[in-house]
């Protein structure tokens, strides 16, 4: 436990020292949302936005963009770097399993995601007048499970990519695909029906986040919230399990 604790402290320090990870992983979604919120028309509730404001309908998507950067960009690249540079190999000569270092990285990623999420929710509420999540516990559960599924995909990429270059390429591809299929580039009500239905299956589950945040009726794509949570949980466990099986230390 001491070692995992120390490792998590060390990984947190390393995360905070890298300005790119802090700016893009933690601050970016809030900056994006506040930037769009600076346009008055986007703050006004309107019928064509499903009765809420644009920023309210789109806020979960901003969050998803940030979560995707942490889970699908930073994690696979960090893990592949550790492997390629022999950080994991070095650690495997000590009494501590290198898995402890990966576990601590995932903990740091979760911490960063929680901070990013709080920033988005609180700044949307304080600055843009977007209500706080209507079902806070469920929202938190959806958030954690959805992020877990994203992390699983990121870890799978780190597991199968033999080189850092390949990991970076796959990570970028996964990010773009997940963000497009997840329907984050536009508010849910503007998306084609097929994409809305698909996005319920794509981590982190933007329609589920929207459902539990604002309860906007058009968002769910027809699926009950608990089913959407279950989909993310199954994804997280299945993909995460595959990643753990396939992971190579060197």
């Amino acid at each position, binding site marked *: 436990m001491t*070692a995992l604790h120390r490792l998590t402290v060390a990984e947190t320090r390393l995360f905070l020292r890298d300005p790119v990870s802090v700016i893009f992983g933690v601050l970016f979604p809030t900056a994006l949302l506040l930037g769009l919120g600076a346009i008055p028309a986007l703050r006004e509730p309107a019928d064509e936005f499903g009765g809420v404001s644009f920023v309210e309908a789109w806020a979960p998507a901003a969050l998803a963009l940030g979560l995707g950067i942490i889970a699908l960009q930073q994690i696979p690249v960090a893990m592949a770097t*550790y492997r390629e540079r022999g950080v994991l190999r070095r650690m495997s000569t*000590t*009494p501590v399993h290198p898995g402890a270092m990966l576990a601590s990285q995932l903990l740091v990623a979760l911490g960063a995601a929680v901070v990013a999420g709080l920033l988005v929710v609180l700044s949307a509420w304080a600055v843009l007048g977007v209500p706080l999540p209507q079902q806070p516990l469920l929202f938190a559960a959806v958030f954690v499970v959805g992020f877990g599924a994203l992390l699983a995909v990121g870890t799978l990429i780190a597991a199968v990519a033999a080189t850092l270059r390949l990991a970076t390429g796959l990570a970028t591809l996964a990010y773009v695909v997940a963000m497009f299929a997840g329907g984050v580039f536009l508010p849910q009500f503007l998306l084609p029906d097929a994409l809305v239905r698909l996005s319920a299956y794509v981590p982190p589950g933007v329609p589920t986040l929207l459902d539990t945040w604002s309860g906007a009726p058009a968002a769910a794509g027809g699926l009950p919230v608990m089913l959407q949570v279950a989909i993310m949980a199954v994804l997280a466990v299945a993909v995460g399990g595959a990643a753990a099986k396939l992971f190579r230390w060197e």
Partner: protein
Amino acid sequence: MDIIEVTHLHKTYGTTTAVDDVSFTVGAGEIFGILGPNGAGKTTTVECLTGLRTPDRGELRVLGLDPRRDRGELRQRVGVQLQESRLPDRQTVAEAMELYRSFYRRPADGEQLLEMLGLADKRHTQYRKLSGGQKQRLAIALALVGSPAVAVLDELTTGLDPQARRDTWDLVEHVRDSGVTIVLVTHFMDEAERLCDRIALVDSGRVVALDTPAGLVAQVGTQQRVHFRPSAPVADALLTDLPEVADVQHHGPRVVVTGTGDLLQAVTSALARHHVVAHDLRVEQTSLDDAFVTLTGRRSA
């Protein structure tokens, strides 16, 4: 007392045989060298020793432990410095030290280690800003942080400048003097000759010779070479008639005489008798380099 026993070690990767029947023992307090060209199987041998790889066949004993079965205990007591393993770029020296100390049951005094390795004034420097020599010294420090009985150092001075190499050598001797048995993997002759009490010369996965550095040299003969530039032409016969001389060769204006015994004395007195002065006189003993080439049939690095 033998700290490490390796008997008939074999390891193949696919169709490549990396280690083919390697046996040796290392005594307590020794600096034991595993010397050989790149790809000879040196690293695989120490990876098996430290439990990083599982050998196909053979017996391994380190501190009375089996590296396959007692990996956890072995890692507490064997410190390893690996080639091509780095630390995270933005981690500072002191942070790495504290982190690695937390992995061990009986951690060494981190401050004292940093002092000893000359890294005390770098403790708040991030890894990416360290020089090659400093990174290498930190790697040694981390290999010693668990107060190990055995330290395995793999290609310690590759990529270091001459001064940093000498400093690192002094350090290795210092570590041995503090009671740590050292297994040193290297492809540098000068390093092995300077540091090692005994050397296993490894080539193509086999131990081709195992002896002290002087013993290895003696195995290939005690020939010497005398080089000089004569002030006047010298007839070969003048030199080849001497019992100590085996061979005379001319390289441009230079003469190279090969032989045994008190060769230098014999050659210079013969020249003096004929009033020839030997300019730029140089004597070469057989070196470990020569022994290496003779024993492996290869050029060294």
